[in-house]
């Protein structure tokens, strides 16, 4: 599947680069008498990111552009022809930022954001262009921002809960803090990408296949790795370190096959719908709906079905459950399948929320999942749900006050504070923690 994948992604990019180079050559030819770039930065490097800032066919000068990434940072302004170029030391991923403050009045970046992530393809030059349009910026009131962030946070919290319930159930039934859950999350998103983009299946079918495969992965991990280790009597802490090794191996295995780039699932970046102050895309709405339905189904499973009750019994006290005739191994197998399938679904929704599928996307979320599980009380499924919603809301709402590159810090600080004052978590019981 790998060759198809690369071919499909590279051919359009090659074409774009060809086209841009042609355009650049033409422009250069036309303006050869004119000035060169007003302020060329990083000319000592071999690789260049460049672009052209225009609005309605008119070049915009003196617009500030900054490039950062990979430990390198540089900025420049566009020249009178609206062109800019920044040299960079390595062929890797960079973030290009257009300072909207420097645009003329009434002009904003309309499509996408003013920050574009770009990655070098086969050539040494990369072109980045922003889509400008008429508009007004930053007129959203604090209350509107708050409501908007609140719904984003709810969406994030719900998808976090899907992953957290799996972590919590696995912890409850086996005592394992599963660090490799991050890779189960990534797996769901990667499989959706493979089946929808590479095999061209409709997205709903691709997601269903990905969830089924995630469940199968959970089943085989339990059968091949965790069950033999439990039989061997390996203690909880070594099991946790094994899961760290597994997480590391799987994560780089994904990078081995899928590369370090970020790809988009079909339909990502759909236009937002407006509901008063709230702007949500149809995908956000679907994501929330799916999460709520699945979470209700899990709740029904845990509270009403025989096997769900058995799961809670094992979670409570494995030896007592075993003595009263519950097949503990079977329960754990089901927990692994359900937990992995939920993680896979969570990964798909996370890929739409971020947005993008990348090899380490699950690992980026893992700490927040652990924070959610600990907040709610280790080993309690409903605690994980409550914890996830709190973490999700907190992460998104904190961007109202904190810079957005620090939004995870807030959630992690809360985690430590909760452990200080209520170590058993919000829904946990005291005897669990000793």
């Amino acid at each position, binding site marked *: 599947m790998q060759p198809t994948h690369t071919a499909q992604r590279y051919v359009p990019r090659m074409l774009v680069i060809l086209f841009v180079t042609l355009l650049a050559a033409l422009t250069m030819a036309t303006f050869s008498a004119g000035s060169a770039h007003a302020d060329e930065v990083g000319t000592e490097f071999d690789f260049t990111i460049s672009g052209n800032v225009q609005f309605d066919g008119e070049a915009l000068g003196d617009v500030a552009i900054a490039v950062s990434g990979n*430990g390198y940072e540089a900025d420049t302004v566009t020249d009178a022809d609206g062109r800019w170029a920044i040299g960079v030391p390595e062929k890797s991923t960079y973030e290009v930022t257009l300072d909207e403050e420097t645009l003329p009045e009434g002009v904003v970046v309309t499509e996408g954001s003013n920050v574009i992530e770009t990655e070098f393809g086969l050539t040494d030059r990369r072109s980045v262009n922003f889509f400008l349009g008429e508009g007004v910026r930053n007129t959203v009131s604090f209350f509107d921002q708050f409501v908007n962030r609140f719904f984003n946070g709810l969406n994030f919290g719900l998808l976090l809960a899907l992953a957290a319930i799996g972590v919590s159930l696995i912890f409850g039934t086996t005592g394992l803090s599963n660090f490799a859950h991050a890779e189960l999350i990534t797996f769901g998103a990667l499989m959706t990408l493979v089946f929808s983009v590479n095999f061209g299946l409709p997205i709903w079918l691709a997601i269903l296949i990905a969830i089924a495969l995630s469940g199968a992965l959970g089943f085989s991990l339990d059968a091949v790795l965790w069950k033999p280790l439990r039989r061997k009597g390996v203690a909880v*802490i*070594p099991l946790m*370190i094994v899961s760290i090794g597994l997480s590391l191996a799987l994560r780089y295995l994904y990078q081995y096959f899928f590369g370090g780039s970020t790809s988009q699932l079909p339909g990502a970046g759909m236009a937002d719908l407006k509901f008063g102050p709230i702007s949500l895309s149809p995908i956000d709405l679907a994501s929330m709906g799916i999460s709520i339905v699945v979470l209700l189904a899990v709740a029904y499973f845990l509270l009403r079905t025989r096997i769900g009750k058995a799961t809670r019994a094992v979670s409570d006290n494995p030896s007592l459950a075993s003595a009263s005739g519950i097949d503990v191994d079977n329960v754990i197998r089901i927990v692994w399948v359900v937990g992995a399938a939920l993680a896979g679904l969570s990964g798909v929704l996370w890929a739409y929320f971020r947005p993008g599928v990348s090899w380490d996307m699950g690992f980026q979320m893992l*700490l927040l999942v*652990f924070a959610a599980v600990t907040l709610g009380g280790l080993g309690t499924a409903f605690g994980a749900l409550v914890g996830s919603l709190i973490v999700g809301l907190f992460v998104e709402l904190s961007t109202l006050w904190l810079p957005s590159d620090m939004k995870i*810090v807030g959630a*992690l600080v809360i985690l430590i504070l909760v452990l200080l004052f209520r170590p058993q978590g919000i829904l946990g019981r005291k005897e669990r923690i000793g």
Partner: protein
Amino acid sequence: MDWGAIFGNAAVELISPTTAAYALAALGLAVHFGYTGLLNFGQAGFMALGAYGYAISILTFGFPVWGAFLVGVGASVIFALILGIPTLRLRADYLAIVTIAAAEIVRLLFTTNTFAAVTGSANGLSGYKNEFAALNPLAEGSYGFGPFENNAYDTWLRIVAWSIVILAALFVWQIMRSPWGRVIKGIREDEDAVRALGKNVYAYKMQSLIFGGVLGTIAGMIFALPRAVVPSNYQTTLTFFIYAILLLGGAATVLGPIIGSMIFWVLLSFFSGFISRAVEAGWLPFMTAIQGGQLRFILVGLAIMLIVIFRPQGIFGNKKELAFVR
């Protein structure tokens, strides 16, 4: 296939400052995990505090080397207190989650643009080496032989780094034979029994957390001296690599972390040299050079799993002194 270059590059790692830094960090982790049974997953955070504490003290405040050293150590003591106070009374895995979270907080605080003036944000800091180089008593020229030949600064750095590692190893060896060390090992084996003997388990755990953390901090400074301080070096993966080294050598040993670090880096360097040349030579047509680099990390992950499952005491460990707490 240039075998000479592959072996030469691998041999360089045997005494490189990076190997020394990982050995010292792993020694700190041996105090935490191997001897006391504390699951510290935030060693990368301690290392980051050491590196940034040193670099910021010199660049922003113009401290001398010893002052910068003390700032780094002081920062890590405070960090250990913050980590320890809420979690050392709780079950072991809480400490794991809190330390991993705290290390990420530290890294994100050094990464954010908000403090870019002091921390250099994602670009990190550099240009703090002159103060250390000025203490160099060696005359200009090159020292050593073969793959171990270095200029005066690099030789000086290696001498200092490995002296610190050896001193720390001797100190850990002695202190673990002392009454204090026996209590520490007792806490690992059975916390309640030690408490029944009237020992303040909480205080002992805190002392162990601070001591191992300070070793990690000094390791962070050694790690920073041959390169720039960049926040992305201090990700959770760094802690996992140190765990791999510790488990390889043996968690409750003094020599284990040091030899483990040498084996780890020599093998890693040998392997990446071999793979990249094998790819160039066309021996591995299904693989690119970049994929070869990732293969290393896949193998590190597999190695962690296999060691824990099949030889939990590591190379130097004693099966009787089990490396793992229950």
